[in-house]
């Protein structure tokens, strides 16, 4: 059964990971722009990063018949300096027409500060102006619930964006219903310690159903697992879920959301 990992940071992973993901059934991935683990010293660092996401990574993934796509933005962890963030944002439009770019992401909030919120709203404006899909990062741990509320409020207050074209990621037990009830798509990230385990993700699927919900690994340079999507499928199977439910959550739902961009494909 093929799967899609709709959120993974392959720039931080080895080529071995691509090989193992392909062996486990991965046919397509999407890679949001994110924090490198340190703050870039100039907007030129982002220019190079956007080239990596649109030129180098698609070629590396193609060696394993995995179709690589990406999202562009300045992430919220580097949005505390609005002047710097706006300089980076001026780089985005020239990359949006590249063949693997699906939209704007992962924008959102990190510590729920005023500057983060300002830059998030400006990204929403850019997405609305250029009619782009949006992938949103919600904050970590103690900041997640408040940040999710602020994000939904900002979208509703400032835009007329269609929630069906927005994925709000990293939902957990206390935010999944909030996101789904407001008409957005929701992503569950499978992390060993700081987000959902495969067991808890399966619990959330049982509580809220499979409509507009997907799973992803968000594998990056930290403690994370690029095979967590197939491991969650094994967990669901072990518990007795049907192949149809498992396929919906790990393949059909990401396919449906991402196919709103004509650039998305599962053909390596």
């Amino acid at each position, binding site marked *: 059964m093929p799967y899609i990992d709709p959120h993974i940071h392959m720039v931080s992973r080895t080529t071995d990971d691509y090989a193992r993901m392909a062996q486990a059934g991965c046919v397509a991935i999407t890679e949001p722009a994110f924090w490198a683990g340190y703050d870039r010293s100039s907007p030129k660092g982002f220019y190079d990063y956007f080239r990596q996401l649109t030129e180098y990574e698609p070629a590396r993934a193609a060696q394993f018949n995995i179709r690589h796509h990406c999202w562009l933005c300045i992430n919220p*962890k580097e949005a505390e300096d609005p002047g710097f963030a706006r300089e980076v944002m001026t780089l985005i439009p020239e990359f949006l027409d590249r063949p693997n770019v699906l939209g704007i992401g992962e924008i959102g909030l990190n*510590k729920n*500060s*005023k500057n983060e919120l300002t830059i998030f709203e400006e990204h929403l404006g850019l997405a609305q102006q250029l009619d782009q899909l949006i992938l949103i990062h919600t904050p*970590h741990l103690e900041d997640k619930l*408040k940040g999710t509320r602020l994000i939904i409020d900002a979208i509703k207050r400032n835009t007329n964006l269609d929630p069906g074209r927005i994925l709000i990621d990293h939902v957990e037990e206390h935010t999944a219903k909030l996101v789904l009830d407001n008409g957005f798509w929701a992503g569950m990230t499978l992390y060993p310690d700081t987000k959902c385990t495969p067991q*808890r993700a399966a619990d959330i*699927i049982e509580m809220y159903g499979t409509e507009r919900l997907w799973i992803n690994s968000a594998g990056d340079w930290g403690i994370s697992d690029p095979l967590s999507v197939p491991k969650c499928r094994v967990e669901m199977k072990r518990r007795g879920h049907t192949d149809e*439910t498992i396929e919906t959550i790990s393949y059909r739902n990401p396919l449906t959301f991402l196919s709103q961009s004509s650039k998305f494909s599962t053909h390596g």
Partner: protein
Amino acid sequence: MSRYAIDCPATKSQVVDLYFMEHRAKLLDIAAFLDRYDRAPADDEGHRGGAAGEDFRVAALRKALRILREDGPERARRIQEHFSDMTEQPIEKAPMQGALGVPPVSRT
């Protein structure tokens, strides 16, 4: 009729068979962590403002254990909310880039 979207496909005994050992081990990890914390010497700069002068994260963990013992559904959601910053307004400036797992005492 179930209040949830999809019934858990496993029966109660199957849930226990599948998960008991894993969660027995996790419970022992929590017990051992609290024992380790109790055995550890105090920091030179003193305690970090929680209940009874305890580290605020440990104080939040002890309170979460009380939620765990309560009856009723969605314990995971309730503990997540207990570990959350429940203020509503954006903060003036991000003090750091990471997260601590529970809100600082000023926002509880």
